[in-house]
């Protein structure tokens, strides 16, 4: 059994699960020829920073047919990116830190002095 796709539980959300003999055969076939989920999540992280080969992208597509979880993971990595990159514009929502009045004064002074120097 080792190396085989493990039996699908009730309510497996994947497109292909072991719902009949034909599907079971397909699931096993794809499971043997695409990376295991533990490896897929590592590859998915890499895909956020560099382009994957065409072969690997095809393999992932096939893998998603038998694994809704990895497909979700991929989608969620993209959402995580969207969230994280928006953090600077949402800092007011969770931070009350402000520049002290004296720091602001210092900055203004430095800026006007700087401008005088620049002419």
């Amino acid at each position: 059994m080792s190396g085989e796709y493990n039996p699908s539980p009730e309510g497996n959300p994947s497109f292909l699960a072991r719902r009949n003999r034909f599907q079971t055969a397909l699931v096993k076939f794809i499971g043997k020829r695409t990376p295991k989920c533990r490896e897929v999540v590592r590859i998915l992280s890499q895909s956020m920073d560099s382009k994957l080969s065409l072969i690997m992208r095809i393999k992932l597509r096939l893998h998603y047919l038998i694994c809704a979880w990895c497909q979700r993971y991929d989608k969620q990595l993209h959402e995580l990116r969207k969230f994280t990159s928006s953090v600077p514009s949402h800092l007011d929502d969770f931070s009350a830190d402000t520049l002290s009045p004296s720091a602001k004064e210092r900055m203004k002074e430095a800026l006007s002095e700087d401008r005088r120097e620049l002419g």
Partner: protein
Amino acid sequence: MKIEGATRAALVRVDPEGWVDEHGDCLYRYALFRVRRPEIAEDLVQETFFTAVRTSGSFRGKSSERSWLCGILKNKICDHFRTLGRETSFTDLEFLDNELSNKFVSQGFWNHERGPLEWKPEAEVVMQRAEFWETLRNCLSKLPARVADVFMLREIEEMETEQICRALNISPNNLWVMLHRARMALRECLEINWFNDPR
């Protein structure tokens, strides 16, 4: 004629002292969030204004003044990490090893009971909730500091991976591992603390 000239000048008005009042706090929050030390954050904001004065010719008002300043600050933050570098320790890389093991069954497939859940509601809806950003910040703060630095340089300042490796003096392989584990931990943390329990 005079009035027309004045209006045109006002369109690309450079008012550094005004920036301090209008955008200072916002920029400072971002800087403090990223570098964690008030005095350094303050310096970075000040440098941002200096650079802005010198490059204000390139600002045509196409983007908002704030996002223009924010973009300059992003570069300052990258530079800050570049000068820091050279002292990276990787001892905290084991931070996810144990948590990972129960996610997968021995053959390397998801343990289906612990596989990723479907996230609801949609990202756009979630992003409008102030509490969500607090949850995200809490999750980020649970990452080991160096891992958080690397992850945020990549995702917030959008630094290229090669640049991060050079700036922080880490090997590409270490970088992949750190990014992977940061993403895995954050995904998990958001799922547990937000999507499993949407308020």
